[in-house]
Structures are given as structure tokens and as C-alpha cells.
């Protein structure tokens, strides 16, 4: 007989996570597709500490247990994340599925994880008596491989508070609702005093892990729009080399072509 557990508080959840071998269960919308009989779940839906959306001096702090609907309805959450949350599944999926699950699933197709990459967000991981703050990029180790220890839980996502008012987001799917992305792309172009202080891009559903190449985006940093235009070709060429898509239901060639089209469109829209 397999035992599953319902935790009423974070403390209780972390204790169970330490003592037992359990699969953290947030909204369940990914887990219930497979739903093997012999799995032991740790139900996290009742933990108040994981349901908050707050902000401090540096971050918007999003509880891992917040559903996509709660993200969309929050006054603190920036539009770039709301757009991605609104593209997940349909209303009934958004009412159950959580951002923590979206990240913890480890999929390069995860809609909200893409935004956390583009915004260089961090994850707050906790175990009993210990916590780690990890850049999201370091959390993903490979296809469905995440840096989450067997006694840890994803408790919060920390999004830098501002700097992405000028963003670009597109999810390419077979239809609007109930679609898994074929390619997704999020980008930010932040300009102040005539110079680019942050150009950030992230490509989802393309490779084993969401592609975020800060080193290539840095080619734009500190430049005026005119100067950025002069490095446009080199920038595109660098991404053309960096993006190595995998083939799945759709071909690598298609994914590559769409990625580059989206990247060009992002630059065009910013006059670069």
C-alpha cells in the first residue's frame, strides 16, 4: 500500500520530504497524465507559505504553489509573466496548475519557466533547516534533469522587480488554447538614456533546456540603437550557431527557422 501525504504547512512538508520518498504534488496537471499507482505524493496545495505573491526591495516573490490563474489575476505580477501564464492550457488547467510545477517539471516547453529564464529569475529551494537561492539557469541540468535534492522543495520564484516593461513574447503552438508550444520566445530590451542596458532573450521548446545566452545578448549592452544595428548581423550569426534544435514532433529545421524569425522580429520592433 502506497502512502501519500497532505501537508498543512511548509514545516510539515519539509519534514515529510526529509523522511519519506515522495513526489511533490502542486497542481497535478502534469503528474496526473501518467499517474502511476505506486507513486507516493506529497500534496502541497494547502501550504499557505507557498501561495503568496509579495514584493521586497529587489524581487517579486511568487509562491511556487500559485496557480496560473492567480498569476494572471495578481496586481504585482508583470505582464510578461501574465502573458505566458495566460497561454497555458485552458481555464481549467490554469485553475489547478502551479508555477512551481511548471518549473519543477523540468521541461524546456514550460511557458512560465521561459519567462523566468529571460528575466534571470532565481529559485528559492528549501529543505528542513536549509535553503538555497539558485539562478534558474543553474537549476536545469539537462532534459528533465533538475538540481532539486530529494529533501528539497521549490518554495518561491524570485523575479527581479523591474526592467522588463519593453518585452516581446510569442508562443507558437498548433492553436490558441490547450496547446503545447512548438517554439516559444521571450525577450526584453531595456533602454535608458539612449543606451541598451539590458537585452535578454530566451528560447523554449527548442533544445533539452531553455536557451538563454547572456554572453551573446551582451553584444548589445551599452550600445545605442544605431550601434546595436551595426552588430545585428554578428548577433544573429552568433545565435544561428548557438541554437541547435532537437527534432521531435516537428523538425529541427522548422524550430530553427522560427527561432531566427522571432529573433529578427524582436530586433526589428526595437529599430535594430
Amino acid at each position, binding site marked *: 500500500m502506497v502512502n501519500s501525504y497532505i501537508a498543512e504547512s511548509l514545516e510539515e512538508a519539509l519534514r515529510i520530504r526529509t523522511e519519506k520518498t515522495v513526489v511533490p504534488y502542486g497542481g497535478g496537471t502534469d503528474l496526473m497524465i501518467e499517474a502511476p499507482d505506486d507513486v507516493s505524493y506529497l500534496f502541497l496545495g494547502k501550504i499557505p507559505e507557498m501561495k503568496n505573491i509579495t514584493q521586497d526591495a529587489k524581487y517579486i516573490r511568487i509562491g511556487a504553489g500559485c496557480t496560473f490563474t492567480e498569476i494572471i489575476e495578481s496586481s504585482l505580477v508583470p505582464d510578461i509573466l501574465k502573458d505566458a501564464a495566460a497561454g497555458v492550457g485552458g*481555464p481549467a488547467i490554469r485553475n*489547478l496548475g502551479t508555477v512551481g510545477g511548471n518549473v519543477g517539471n523540468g521541461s524546456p516547453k514550460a511557458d512560465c519557466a521561459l519567462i523566468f529564464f529571460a528575466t534571470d529569475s532565481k529559485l528559492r529551494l528549501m529543505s528542513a533547516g536549509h535553503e538555497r537561492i539558485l539562478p534558474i539557469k543553474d537549476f536545469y541540468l539537462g532534459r528533465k534533469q533538475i538540481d532539486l535534492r530529494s529533501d528539497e522543495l521549490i518554495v518561491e520564484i524570485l523575479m527581479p522587480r523591474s526592467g522588463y516593461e519593453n518585452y516581446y513574447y510569442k508562443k507558437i503552438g498548433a492553436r490558441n488554447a490547450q496547446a503545447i508550444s512548438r517554439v516559444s520566445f521571450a525577450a526584453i530590451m531595456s533602454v535608458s538614456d539612449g543606451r541598451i542596458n539590458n537585452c535578454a532573450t530566451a528560447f523554449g521548446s527548442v533544445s533539452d533546456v531553455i536557451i538563454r545566452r547572456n554572453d551573446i545578448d551582451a553584444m548589445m549592452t551599452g550600445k545605442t540603437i544605431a550601434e546595436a544595428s551595426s552588430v545585428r548581423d554578428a548577433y544573429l550569426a552568433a545565435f544561428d550557431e548557438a541554437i541547435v534544435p532537437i527534432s521531435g514532433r516537428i523538425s529541427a529545421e522548422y524550430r530553427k527557422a522560427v527561432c531566427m524569425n522571432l529573433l529578427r522580429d524582436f530586433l526589428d520592433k526595437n529599430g535594430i
Partner: protein
Amino acid sequence: MIFTLNGKEVDYKGSLNARLLDVLRDEYRLTGVKCGCKEGECGSCSVIMDGLLINSCMVALGRAEGSTIVTIEGYSGMKRFAVLEKAYASVSAVQCGFCIPGMILASECILAKNPHPTEDEIRLGISGNLCRCTGYNSIVNAIRIAAEEGDGLW
């Protein structure tokens, strides 16, 4: 494990891993909850949990503890249902009927949130409920009619 089902408190003794859809159909014989895909794609198993539309195939019982769940069987006793039923019938929004229990509950959730939705809001609200017969226009129409006819109920 205790939850409220169609207004009555029930004490479920089975596994916390059981799928809500299966428990509703097999244990409580609420067969208005349809099983279409078992992967959150079709919406035919939709029920209302704590006021929100959810797919019952996507819920393990442990997630439902303490929740209030309404299926089409419970909802069909309400005045709001009568308005929706009449509106759906008036424009032939039901053909084979398989999606309709979920579609009616999705309609309720649209109107509960916004008693006078725009067409786009209606379409968004049913975007997780697939219908292979009607082409959706008659359903959208029915929800619009229900919003007018049921003015004050939502």
C-alpha cells in the same frame, strides 16, 4: 478524507492517489462527469472545485481534501441551470451531448465571474472544453442568451 460533494459532506476512505474523475463516476455514480481524454485536453470531465472550473481527471483525491465540489448533477437543481438549459435548447447548442455537462459548468464559471461577458470572454471561458458537433457558435450564443435571460441571477 472529507470533502463536500454537491452540497453534502462525504468521507472518502480510498486512496489519496485516486483520480477524482474515477471516484466521482465509480464511487458516487455521478456519471454526468464524462471521461474523454484523461489528460486535461477535452474538458468533458469538468467540475467546479471551490468555485473554479477544473478537470476532474487532473486531480488526485489528496488535492481535493476539504474542497467543495459541484458536478452537473448538483448544479442541475439550481435556477441558473434552468436558464442555461433553456438557452442551450433555444439555439440547438446540444447535439450529441457528451461535452455538455462540462460545457454547462464552464458556462456557469464564465457568468459567475462576469455576468455580462463579451463574445471573446465567452470563447476564452470555454476554450478548454472541446465540442465535436456544434462548431461552438451555438454554444457561445446560448451563453450570451443565458446572460440576458438570467440577468440578476449571476
